[in-house]
């Protein structure tokens, strides 16, 4: 019963997201599309931070590569076939994640944090300083991808609602994919690696292989988010890969609650909405954003979503008149 109650908000949120375009104006559908894309980005990082115990500070590299692969291959095309563009972006991000992961996974702790950052900076400067790919102006895309069968257009992403549902289905299927992966033996191993890598190795597992696979999956999903963002906004520039982007992504994962999968989605909602509405309040909105993040780190380290089960327990206990505190299990 408790599992049902706990997944209720998730289902309700999904229902609200599915119905939203029927009520919201085009501006808000566009904003929500962006949030969904960023949520996918944060979700992919949760696999690394929350489940594998790899603190990647260069996750934005894959996000950027997903976007750039689309932009570079199709900047002059007269039509962007989805079934070519999407696999290309995913493959580019996956390949980059394989290379960066292979190098980074040999290190751990602060070295891992720093080497992933350095790798992302390398990509950032590569695109920043290459006139061929637009330098710091980036690349503009004037078309949206189209899904075609034969010569028939099945799904045109130039309509905001279509794009919205496409992005939402990407987020939902990525979420389900991660749920499945985490339930599989592979998921058990990476969670065990996070808990105690030495013991897992002592049990005979080659942990670096598992970490690399996890890194590649996360990178590929980040590439998917980058692909969506590039297609949605119509331009790709080096700031996709900036270390600020990686930092904000970590902030979203923690803010929502890491190691939960739904937490980072909530975190993305919080951060993007703050980024969107705080500037209306004050010119110095980053001060507020910084303050909020600091407060969360200090007082709510398990994130905003950790409040919900706590409140549930509180209500249940007060109903039964129980007193003793109950530790909520992690999974």
């Amino acid at each position, binding site marked *: 019963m408790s599992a049902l109650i706990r997944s209720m908000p998730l289902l309700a949120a999904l229902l609200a997201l599915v119905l939203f375009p029927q009520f919201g104006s085009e501006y808000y559908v566009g904003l929500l599309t962006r949030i969904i894309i960023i949520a996918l980005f944060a979700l992919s990082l949760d696999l690394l931070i929350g489940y594998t115990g790899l603190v990647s500070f260069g996750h934005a590299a894959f996000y950027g590569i997903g976007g750039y692969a689309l932009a570079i291959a199709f900047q002059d095309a007269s039509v962007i076939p989805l079934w070519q563009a999407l696999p290309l972006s995913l493959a580019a991000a996956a390949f980059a994640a394989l290379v960066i992961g292979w190098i980074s996974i040999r290190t751990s*702790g602060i070295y891992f944090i720093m080497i992933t950052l350095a790798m992302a900076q390398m990509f950032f400067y590569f695109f920043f300083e290459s006139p061929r790919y637009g330098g710091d102006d980036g690349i503009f895309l004037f078309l949206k991808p189209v899904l075609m069968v034969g010569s028939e257009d099945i799904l045109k992403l130039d309509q905001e609602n279509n794009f919205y549902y496409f992005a939402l289905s990407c987020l939902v299927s990525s979420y389900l994919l991660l749920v499945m992966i985490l339930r599989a033996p592979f998921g058990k191993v990476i969670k065990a690696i996070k808990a105690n890598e030495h013991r897992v190795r002592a049990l005979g597992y080659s942990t670096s292989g598992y970490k690399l696979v996890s890194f590649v999956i996360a990178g590929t999903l980040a590439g998917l988010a980058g692909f969506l963002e590039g297609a949605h906004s119509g331009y790709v520039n080096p700031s996709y890969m900036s270390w600020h982007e990686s930092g904000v992504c970590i902030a979203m994962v*923690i803010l929502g609650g890491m190691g939960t999968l739904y937490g980072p989605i909530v975190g993305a909602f919080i951060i993007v909405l703050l980024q969107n509405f705080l500037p209306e309040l004050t010119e*110095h909105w980053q*001060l507020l*954003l910084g*303050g909020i993040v600091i407060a969360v780190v200090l007082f709510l380290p398990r994130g905003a979503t950790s409040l919900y089960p706590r409140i549930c327990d509180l209500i249940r206990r007060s109903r039964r008149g129980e007193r003793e505190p109950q530790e909520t299990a992690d999974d």
Partner: protein
Amino acid sequence: MELSFYLVQLLNAVQYGFLLFLVASGLTLLFGIMGIINLAHGSFYMVGAYLAYWLTDLTGSFWLAILLGLPIALMVGYLVERFAISFLYQRDHLYQVLLTFALILVFNELQQILWGTDVHGVVIPEILAGSIPLTDNQSYPIYRLFISAACIAIACGMYWVIQKTRLGMMIRAGASNREMVQALGIDVNRLFAFVFSLGVALAAFAGMLAAPVDSVYPGMGENVLIISFVVVVIGGTGSIKGTFVGAMLIGLVSTFGKVLLPEMASIMVYALMAVILLWRPHGLFGRAA
């Protein structure tokens, strides 16, 4: 391209390396001794530069500005340690990364509130304003030599404090076994607050020294921060010697990279780091954790 040209570049590289060393040695102290990853270190560099600009404007003297600015930087460091960092010693690096990342946002915004978004310059003090002629058409500014000299002095001072004094002994002991030092009756909290403030002051001092040669602008600390992290990681965290070697390496690679291969210069620094970490995953002078 003649020899003197390369000599000037070499001097520039060494001077840049020394500045990096000042910032990075603070970082490596914080990491090695306190186990703290401080992303806000670049912000303290920026604070130093702005203090130099502001106080020079106010007092009319660059020297007075440094004299007044350093205690302010120490104070800022102490407050940040007490009210934010001190809660994170037992926590995962992840939270340190996030909290200090948020501190960057806060410091950037405070800087804009206090000093605006204009680019400022600081005039080189008169005694050091000249330059030394090397050949008929090449000369080297005295102030840059002064930067190197000041950094050498600080480095020697740091070496002396850490290796020869009682305080240094406590710092070294705290780095290798925190609990034991505490058990021996040393107030680790005070020690850490002091070390953090010292690291902040080092970064701010580097920013002050750099202000007259580099302009003072918003976000100036962020490039320095990331390069300093590269230095620390190349050298091996917690090793002052490694940090020095790393800083010089990066100084050379980035200065000569800009001259010889301008379009690849920014990438080369990171590529160097990747190669070194492939060869030695814990940095040149680092030990396995």
